[in-house]
Structures are given as structure tokens and as C-alpha cells.
């Protein structure tokens, strides 16, 4: 399986943010997107996820399920956590499990996900009580409550401490080791096992 971007040109407003970008990410691989603010990391991720229609070029998942769009085979974690404050931690995770994964072995998956991100002691608390870092971890726990071959993460380590970042890195490594692939926008180096780096600033066509 590989995620392929072919000759992408993406406009935001009247500005061409990305022009003529091609790359492929194979199963078992993680691609780190780097580049200054405004280099187009978020835009590229949202295009891969299918929210933004590129001006030119296309995104496809080779070896995936042809019935589904790329977005339907991907986890997308953006700047927001998609956490409901009046639901408990466990309810938040259980909802995404039921919604994204048709609730297969729900309890097991939810339990594993919360444990991995160190939230198991908080599972009965309403999410409103969580700190920013804990909310972020709950947002990331979504990655484990449902199985998706593609992970698209936008600055996933934002508001995470070192220990939590390591848990995320471990989750991504597990994911790639079991045949998944990931595209991660980050400005911090992540100690991933099999990662390549794509610097978006360098990709820019000189003016």
C-alpha cells in the first residue's frame, strides 16, 4: 500500500501555496513534513485528507480499498482535538469507536487506547476537567480506537510533554511496524523508526 501525491498544485485564496509537489509514502513508512509557518503543511495535510480539492494533480491510495475515499481510510488529527467537554473521557473514545469503526470489540479497543495515552485513570471524568495536554492525548487516542491504515497528523505534539510525545512516537512506530503509514507535520524532531523528511520550504518553486 502506498499514498501517492502526483504533481499537486494547491491554492489558498488567491495564493498558490504548493506547486508541482509529488511524493509517495509506502506502507510501514512515516513522512515528516517540515517547513516554516505558512509553508503549506496544514494545507497539504488537508488536501491529502480530501477536504481541499487541489487545483491540479491528485492524491490516491494505491493498494487501499477502492470503494472508499482516502479520507475514509485515514485518521486526521488537526489542531483541534474533537473532544466533547461534557462527555466523559471513556464516552468520547467510545463514540469515536462506534462512529469510525462500527464498534467492533469496543471495550478492548477503547481500553487499550486510553491506557496507551495514560488516560485510564481519568476515564470516568468529564473531558472538561482535563488539562490541555490531557485533552490532546484524548484527541490522539482516537488513532487507536479505530483501525485506519493512513494517519495524517498536524502538529500532533502540540501541548504534549516529553513523556506524552514518546507515547505518541511509540504509537506511530507500532502503526508503521504493523503495515500502516503516516504523514506528520511537525516542527520538532520526532524519534521515529522509519521516517523520511520532506521540507516544504525547499519544495517551493522559486519566484
Amino acid at each position, binding site marked *: 500500500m502506498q499514498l501517492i501525491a502526483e504533481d499537486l498544485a494547491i491554492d489558498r485564496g488567491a495564493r498558490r501555496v504548493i506547486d508541482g509537489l509529488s511524493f509517495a509514502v509506502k506502507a510501514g513508512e512515516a513522512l515528516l513534513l517540515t517547513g516554516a509557518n505558512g509553508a503549506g503543511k496544514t494545507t497539504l495535510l488537508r488536501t491529502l*485528507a480530501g477536504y481541499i480539492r487541489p487545483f491540479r494533480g491528485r492524491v490516491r491510495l494505491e493498494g487501499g480499498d477502492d470503494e472508499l475515499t482516502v479520507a475514509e481510510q485515514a485518521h486526521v488529527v488537526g*489542531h483541534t482535538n474533537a473532544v466533547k467537554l461534557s462527555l466523559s473521557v471513556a464516552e468520547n473514545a467510545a463514540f469515536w469507536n462506534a*462512529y*469510525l469503526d462500527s464498534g467492533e470489540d469496543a471495550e478492548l479497543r477503547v481500553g487499550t487506547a486510553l491506557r496507551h495515552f495514560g488516560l485510564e485513570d481519568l476515564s470516568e471524568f468529564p473531558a472538561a476537567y482535563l488539562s490541555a495536554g490531557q485533552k490532546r492525548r484524548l484527541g490522539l487516542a482516537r488513532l487507536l480506537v479505530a483501525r485506519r491504515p493512513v494517519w495524517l497528523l498536524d502538529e500532533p505534539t502540540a501541548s504534549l510533554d516529553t513523556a506524552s510525545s514518546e507515547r505518541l512516537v511509540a504509537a506511530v512506530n507500532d502503526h508503521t511496524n504493523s503495515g500502516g503509514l503516516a504523514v506528520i507535520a511537525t516542527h520538532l524532531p520526532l524519534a521515529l523508526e522509519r521516517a523520511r523528511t520532506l521540507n516544504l520550504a525547499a519544495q517551493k518553486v522559486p519566484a
Partner: protein
Amino acid sequence: MKSFWALLHRDVTLAIREGGAIGTALGFFLVVVSLMPLGLGPDLNLLSRIAAGILWIALLLAALLSLNRIFEADHEDGTLDVLATGPLPLELVTAAKSLAHWVTTGIPLAIMAPVLGILLNLDLAAYPILVATTLVGTPAVSFLGAIGAALTMKTRRGGLLLALIVLPLYVPTLIFGISAVSAGAGPTGLAASFLILAAISLVTIVLGPLAAAAALKVHLQ
């Protein structure tokens, strides 16, 4: 289908837990209805004649208050982005959320309407009809409202704009809702307007989610 029920269940749970929206809508409904006699004078005959109209208009205004939260909250915390990547087509996402709005706002308002009818000296025979028409008519309120909520999701002063867009669309519901209740309609008129009201609700249940989903797709870009 499991995703649909999960989403519906979550929205209903949220509305009950957060409580504010339902309470505000019901409170607003009560306030508007009780202001009417103050404006029109305490003539009970007059009030009972126009009770159905007052109740329906106040109900629409009360429902309007809660519409803008249908998509806004999910948009703000990023839930909408994730919902869009789920196995459920966006049309069914909007359908589930409109349905949840009906369950949490339409039904409570419909139940509240006959209680407020007492304040307006509503004819006793009209009570069952009032409950029936509000129950059958309020889905149109939620599903049409969802279109407006989706269109105005990211706008400044979204609430006022929402009212401007949605209220003209409520005209048919209002007309047939009232005409079914008003005493002069007679049994045949009643059956006719009741059926038309049901038809309007069915049409909007089909049309609303399509238009709302189209609007959300634009916003997600």
C-alpha cells in the same frame, strides 16, 4: 447505520447534559407567549381565536434560537472534520444532527405548546390537534433550520442572518400548522392541511440534509 445511531445518541446526550439549549428554547417560548396578551389586551375571545397563530410563531422563534448550535459547536472543536472522514456520508451526518435537533428541541416545544395554550384560552377541542400538528410540523422546522445553520456556520452575526434566511422558508409550515388548528377549518380542511403538513415535513427531511451537506462541504475546504 451504527455510525448514524452513535451520532444521534451522542447529540441527544450532549443536548441533555448541556441542558442550556433546551431550557433556553422552552423559556423563550414561554416568555413570548406570555408577552402576547400584554400586547393584545386580555380579551379572552380574541386570544382564543388567534391562539394557534401565536403558539406557532412563538414556537418557530424559539426553535430559531437553538438552530445555530447544530453545526457550530462541532465545527469549533474540530469534530466536524473528523465526522466527515467517517463511514457515514455527509448527507447522513446532517440528517442525524437535524434529527437530534428535532428530538431535543422540536419535541419539547411541541409538548410545551398545549400547556401554553391554557394561557391563551385555546379551545379545548383544539388540544389534540395542536399536539399532533406541532409534532408533525416540527421536523420541517429542524431540517430546514439545519440548512440555514450549515450555510451560516462560519459567518459573523450568524444568528440574525440565520433568521433572515430560514424564516421565509418556514412560511408553508406556519400556514398549514395554523390552518389545521384553527377551528374554522372543519374536519375535511383539517385532514387536508394535516396531510400537507406531513408532506412538507417529508420533503424537507429529504431535501434538508442534501443542502446542508453541500454547504458543509464548502465550509470544510
